[in-house]
């Protein structure tokens, strides 16, 4: 079934659709909800909507103001992302997630299963560690509001771990009849902690057997199948009552002899069932012949051993939950329960335990779905109830690696695993700091991960160059050329705005952005024309191969080289370079006038520098410029330009005269 079809409506606290019509816009991870100016014609003013619970959305910020002004609400889809203490959970589980993606699929049968169970345990230990931190925080804070918040988080984390653990037993490990019961017992022992303080109190008292809660603790041990502990306690009571020693011995013997499934292959299920039948009959005999009649406590224990439902239900308070009742019931009446039989016992246990007094809560429904092996139901219910995507995303991914979800395709998106990972990662990306974690999750969504990453990564604010470099690295590693260009362009623009031409150029060189390199080169040249000197020589002198990125950059580099040669008084080389810049069309036409003006001092040198041929070429350049220029008008109007052209013509003519004389003399002699 599709996931979203039955998600209950969500209410944005503070927004009142009955008073104002609302409009909204989807964002990558948030929804903007806005109050419009339109009232609701004839609509009732009752705030009917506010009674429902907002389950996964939270209002991150509301606009203040009088009722008449419109407000904008930012609705985030994953509110737990913003809980500081949970960042440990997100970061640590990211490492486990990555390990799982890397893990060897080829590992065969048993070792693969062991590996997956280990991964599952690692996830759970992170949840537990986080729970402990949260508990510590709750204990150490003095702010009652914060304390309440932390306590809520502790119970949410604890529920998450409870569900995860059950899924681990049933789906990941897929324990078979026999070991299944042992696992479920461990599960109950680990999670039913309400009685722990009572047990501690009794055990630490001076003489436990005199404690008023003594029998309660014995019962707790029996109900949880902790036989050795129960027997140990009973032996204390026995030594205090020598008269009923025999009765104690018998009960102790029964408890000792109780057959339990073994984890190894030492006995077959049939063997176990036989032994168990035998033992069951023995218990029955003692109960019937009234061995324990004189002690109601022991009689009740014997009844529990026999799996008497009423006797077990009497201890409801000590079990606290229906799933504890279920496991106790299985232990004493169906120790070899098969996985697929669980659903019947689970349903009846819940019915018996709740007895129509209270209706099942969401957690009960989730556990029930697990016992029914309705994996998708578990994930769906969790998605609705929990205020984060972390849980369902990671659990689903693990189940997918167990090859349990293959057949399930959604009518939207790709498959459920990917859908949930995308949701979770989008939440991470909406966080100012956790976005880096999101990248790896997108990487492991084969269908839409790339598109999501492309959309999200462009929205990361690039506050410093260092951060930009990190974002850039992510894009470069994934050949996201479009994003690489866009990031470099943003950074280059920023640098340009800050008058950091050097930095701007490095960014466009990194993106191999020829157009932008040209733009920046033009800025350099413009600066030069205005100031008469180059800025950022350290950069321009060190362009290296990157000079070839754009023609204008090449020209900039070469033009600077001309200045260097000129500065070093290497005039013939400088002259040759200057001429080449024009004849090889490296220089933009708009710059020719500047170049020709640069030739003036060379023409005026005492020594003749331009050869006759070179001088002709210079003349041709000048004529091309003045004749071919469509802005001919401009030259005629501009006095300065006209004077320049006249001066150049004169200098060229003079040079030509000098060079003819010189060349004639040299060749003639």
């Amino acid at each position, binding site marked *: 079934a599709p996931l979203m079809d039955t998600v209950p409506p969500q209410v944005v606290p503070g927004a009142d659709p009955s008073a104002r019509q609302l409009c909204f816009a989807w964002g990558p991870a948030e929804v903007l909800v806005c109050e419009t100016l339109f009232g609701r014609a004839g609509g009732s003013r009752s705030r009917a909507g506010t009674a429902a619970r907002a389950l996964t959305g939270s209002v991150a910020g509301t606009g203040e103001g009088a009722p008449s002004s419109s407000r904008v609400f930012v609705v985030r889809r994953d509110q737990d992302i913003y809980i500081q203490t949970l*960042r440990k959970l997100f970061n640590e589980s990211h490492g486990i997630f*990555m390990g799982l993606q890397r893990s060897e699929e080829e590992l065969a049968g048993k070792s693969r299963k062991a590996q997956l169970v280990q991964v599952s345990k690692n996830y759970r230990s992170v949840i537990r560690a986080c729970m402990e931190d949260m508990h510590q925080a709750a204990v150490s804070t003095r702010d009652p509001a914060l304390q309440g918040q932390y306590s809520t988080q502790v119970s949410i984390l604890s529920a998450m771990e409870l569900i995860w653990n059950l899924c681990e037993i049933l789906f990941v490990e897929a324990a078979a009849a026999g070991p299944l019961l042992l696992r479920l017992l461990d599960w109950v022992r680990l999670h039913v902690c309400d009685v722990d303080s009572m047990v501690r109190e009794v055990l630490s008292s001076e003489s436990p057997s005199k404690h008023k809660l003594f029998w309660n603790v014995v019962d707790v041990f029996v109900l949880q199948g902790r036989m050795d502990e129960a027997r140990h306690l009973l032996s204390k009571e026995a030594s205090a009552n020598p008269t009923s020693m025999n009765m104690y011995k018998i009960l102790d013997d029964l408890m000792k002899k109780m057959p339990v499934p073994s984890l190894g292959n030492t006995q077959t299920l049939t063997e176990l069932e036989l032994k168990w039948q035998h033992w069951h009959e023995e218990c029955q005999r003692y109960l019937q012949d009234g061995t324990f009649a004189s002690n109601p406590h022991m009689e009740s224990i014997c009844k529990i051993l026999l799996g008497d439902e009423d006797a077990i239900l009497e201890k409801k308070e000590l079990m606290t939950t229906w799933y504890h009742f279920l496991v106790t019931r299985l232990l004493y009446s169906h120790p070899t329960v098969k996985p697929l039989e669980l659903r019947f016992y689970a349903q009846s246990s819940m019915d018996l335990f709740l007895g129509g007094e209270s209706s099942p809560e969401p957690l009960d429904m989730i556990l029930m779905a697990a016992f029914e092996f309705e994996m998708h139901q578990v994930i769906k219910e969790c998605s609705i109830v929990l205020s984060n995507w972390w849980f369902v995303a990671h659990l689903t991914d693990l189940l997918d690696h167990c090859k349990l979800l293959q057949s399930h395709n959604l009518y939207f998106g790709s498959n459920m695993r990917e859908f949930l990972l995308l949701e979770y990662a989008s939440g991470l990306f909406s966080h*100012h700091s956790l976005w880096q974690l999101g990248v*790896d999750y997108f990487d492991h969504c084969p269908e839409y991960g790339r598109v999501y990453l492309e959309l999200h990564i462009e929205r990361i604010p690039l506050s410093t160059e260092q951060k930009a*470099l990190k974002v850039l*690295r992510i894009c470069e590693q994934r050949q996201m050329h479009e994003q690489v260009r866009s990031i470099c362009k943003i950074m280059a623009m920023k640098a340009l705005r800050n*008058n950091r031409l050097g930095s701007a150029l*490095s960014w466009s060189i990194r993106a191999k952005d020829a157009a932008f390199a040209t733009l920046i080169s033009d800025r350099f040249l413009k600066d030069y024309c205005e100031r008469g000197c180059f800025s950022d020589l350290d950069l321009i002198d060190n362009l290296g*191969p990157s000079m070839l990125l754009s023609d204008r950059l090449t020209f900039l580099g070469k033009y600077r080289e001309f200045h260097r040669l000129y500065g070093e008084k290497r005039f013939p080389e400088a002259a040759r370079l200057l001429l080449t810049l024009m004849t090889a069309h490296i220089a933009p036409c708009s710059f020719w006038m500047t170049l020709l003006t640069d030739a003036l001092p060379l023409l005026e040198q005492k020594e003749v520098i331009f050869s006759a041929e070179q001088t002709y070429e210079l003349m041709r350049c000048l004529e091309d410029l003045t004749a071919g220029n469509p802005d001919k008008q401009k030259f005629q109007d501009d006095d300065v330009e006209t004077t320049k052209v006249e001066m150049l013509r004169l200098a060229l003519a003079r040079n030509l005269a000098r060079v003819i004389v010189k060349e004639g003399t040299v060749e003639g002699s």
Partner: protein
Amino acid sequence: AMEDVSAKFVSQKISRTRWRPLPAAALQSPDLFATGSWDNEDNRVSIWSAGDLGNAGLNGEYHGEPHLLCDIQHNGDVMDMQFLDQERIVVASSTGTVTIFRHHQNNQTLSANHRWEKAHYHVDQDTSCGGAACTGVVCNNPEIVTVGEDGRINLFRADQKDAVRTIDNADSSTLHAVTFLRTTEILTVNSIGQLKIWDLRQQRNEPSQIFSLAGDRVPLHCVDRHPNQQHIVATGGQDGMLSIWDIRQGTMPVSLLNAHEAEMWEVHFHPSDPDHLFTCSEDGSLWHWDTSTSVSEKPSFLHQGGRSTAYLSHSTINQSVVSAWLSNDPTKDRMEITNLIPNQTLSVNSLDVLGPCLVYGTDAEAIYVNRQLFA
């Protein structure tokens, strides 16, 4: 070995980790370190105790995770950080501000001791915006040198309100890091692959020497100088390459060593055992470069992580000083390289080594302390 490493998830991305320097002639191991965070809505400078020393076993084994002593809010990303002395720490901010924080050890608090607002800036220092990230800071008490995205170099004195000297537009590209070469000379690296020496005694606003990488001008992100042989300088680049420079000769690196797969964020010679060098990178690895085995047949002590052996390539001959880092004898050129973090995925932004201790911080919001680097 990895089992000696204690980790702590701190719910903030760590940009810098620094050991508090030990008093002269101290014999004990460093016990306190500082961290700075980045990319948070609320960034912090924090002081940590490396762990309860009382819990250290007789044979020096050490357990227990780092423990927060105090922290203080910091405006902007912490870009760099350096202890000025035992009590004061200089912090460079992405807002361009440089702050000295004082750690009060009697009541475990941090307070801002002095602040140079917008020591680095674009266009105009007085406008409300326009701060440029201060990318690097180095201290030689009482002197403090900072560099930034604005290509500016500032020289401060801890006791003076105004900058002692500022070189505007010292570099046309971004300056990424700075370190002292000698008391009056500094080294900077920039985003076009250049290493520059600046003599602060000279009034000229030009570097006294420029070295650069050949070919593509790969940006350099970090620089460190050999603690005993000052002519040996190590830099790390955007391509993860480690370059060793001999600043007495040439303008190009003596050797280029293939290292990380992404930006090398920090490089540090071990301050008292400079045969060892440590580098960390955006690719999530932290490498230990060990040249000590090249001289003697000392057995290697680190067995974790991927190991490879590299050979130095040389462009120069006739070394006058025998250093493992510049040595050109092929039989001695073996170098043990060990990745101290296998399977890490997110960037290791910073590391610091002191005595037998290593501390590093990551974008995965964890800090790690290894107290037995050479055990």
